[in-house]
């Protein structure tokens, strides 16, 4: 294990405890693990900007950065213990919860649409789409959401969608639209999306109505 990385994680845990409750603390540490592993301490401001955005800009990032820099130069015995066991427990709990929730009718409607679209794509297009989606999702979804959505796309299992609210799923749909535009071109994308939505509305008008919240 990279000692520098462990030190950074402990420093973040030490400082952010003053600002965040346990649930948010776990989220913040997961973001660190997913996106900032291996980066130098000097790049810590990028991480703070990201989690400030994640927590809707309620944190005083300037002060936190100063505190972090102070803490990082201390002896390691002054830092809080490594929070990795806590993170592992949280991740295990989250994985077991995935299948506890059932997708709503709205989410099932969205799932029908996405499945329909993915079925239309050839194997080569699907591969390109997944590459594009991976890039886009990594930019917009953090803290384990990325993994869930990636697993959803691979498995085509709607239960992965159950943990998301409308806003997140609308974002997810937009990411899929953008990736399709990049891979298939805007004209074919509009045609595919248009015909899939039209078909759902024709077959099941209630599901068609439900889709509206994500479009």
């Amino acid at each position, binding site marked *: 294990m990279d000692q520098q990385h462990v030190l950074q994680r402990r420093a973040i845990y030490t400082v952010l405890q003053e600002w965040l409750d346990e649930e948010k603390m776990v989220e913040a540490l997961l973001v660190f693990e997913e996106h900032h592993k291996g980066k130098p301490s000097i790049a810590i401001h990028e991480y703070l900007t990201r989690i400030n955005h994640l927590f809707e800009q309620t944190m005083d990032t300037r002060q936190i950065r100063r505190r972090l820099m102070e803490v990082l130069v201390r002896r390691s015995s002054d830092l809080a213990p490594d929070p990795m066991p806590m993170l592992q427990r949280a991740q295990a709990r989250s994985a077991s919860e995935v299948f506890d929730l059932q997708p709503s009718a709205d989410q099932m409607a969205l799932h029908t649409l996405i499945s329909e679209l993915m079925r239309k794509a050839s194997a080569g297009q699907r591969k390109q789409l997944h590459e594009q989606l991976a890039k886009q999702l990594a930019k917009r979804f953090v803290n384990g959401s990325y993994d869930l959505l990636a697993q959803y796309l691979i498995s085509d299992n709607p239960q992965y969608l159950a943990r998301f609210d409308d806003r997140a799923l609308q974002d997810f749909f*937009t990411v899929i639209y953008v990736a399709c535009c990049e891979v298939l071109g805007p004209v074919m994308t*509009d045609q595919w999306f248009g015909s899939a*939505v039209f078909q759902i509305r024709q077959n099941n008008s209630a599901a068609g109505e439900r889709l509206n919240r994500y*479009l």
Partner: protein
Amino acid sequence: MKQLALFLLVLLPANTQAAVGDEPVNTVWLVVAAALVFFMQTGFALLESGMSRSKNAVNVVMKNYMDVCLGSMVFWALGFGIMFGINETGFFGASHWLPQFTDEWSYTFLLFQIMFAATATTIASGAMAERTRYSGYLVGALVITGLIYPIFGSWVWGGFFGGKGWLSELGFVDFAGSTVVHSVGAWCALAGIMVVGPRLGRFDPVTGVARLIPGHNLNNVALGGFILWLGWFGFNAGSTLQADSSLGKIALNTHLAACAGAVGTFLAQTLMRKPVLLTHTINGSLGGLVAITAGCATMSPTYAVITGLLGGVLVILGSYLLELLQLDDAVGAIPVHGFAGVWGTLAAGFFMEGDLFNLQQLGIQAVGCVVAFLWAFPAAFLTYWLLDKLIGLRASHLDQQRGLDYSEHAERGYPEFDRLPLHKPLAG
């Protein structure tokens, strides 16, 4: 008083001098010409919205509509003074803000010039269509009409009330505005598309090859092209500012160049073994019209045909060049107004009747074209860049997905026939 009036007449450019006076026929002609130029906005609206996807049609029309409204007011209040006010330095006019005139003719002149300013402004709307936010675009249009266009205009046409623009002093000739109106508008559009970026999926991310995004209504495109052609008779022939015997030749040159532009496009596409598209053909005509605008009064019809023909060819070559550079001009406005405008301005010097193939004049014309680019492009780039940073210029992915009709205006252009239900149905 009479002596003062005579002195002012001496200072004015030749075409305006001749027009000053109380001849009612001149006023009637200029008002009709102004109405024709205004009608060109209809052409722009139809052409640009027809070349856009149905989910963005209303947004394109709204931009055309509002940039006339806002642009006219800001040009009346500010731009006219900068462009035509007393121009002692040669670089900008500095009088006649919110103008009040003592003579009726000046009001007629102001009306005509307002329509020109609106034309320069509206060029960017098509190039930036389908991904530009409404508010950001309108603020940009205000800056173009209030500052960028009139400042350059003052260098060429300035000094209606005293003084003279420095390019005009140099001998630069641009009768009706191939450069002053069209190229300046096109360079602003170029800056706009560079700041706002291409439409989603316009270029393949791996190969960089441009993907065709066809418009939703080619009949509207054709109708818009015809209307623009009609309006151009007012644009070019109106620039005489008087009803005299030169109108016929100017209108004839205008017409021939438009025809030749379409033929030039046809030939270029055929020689390159590409399909001859309606949109390209109409843009070819418009390229011919833009090209002849600078020299329509000073060329013989033969040279008007050559000018128009090459204008049409340049439109095609320019379109491919932009695609190669991965610049997304949604309607081909930059090749039409920019590249054909530059060619037309050079041709006006080179094919000038009575002074054919004068290389010195050609050099002066080239200086004017370069100066137009060096002024308009950076000024517009800075404007759009600031707008992007301050209020946001590019529509979000979600808004582009839904279409700007819905996301910017909460209405749809084609509610009954909507075959792409990619956005929420409107409430009620």
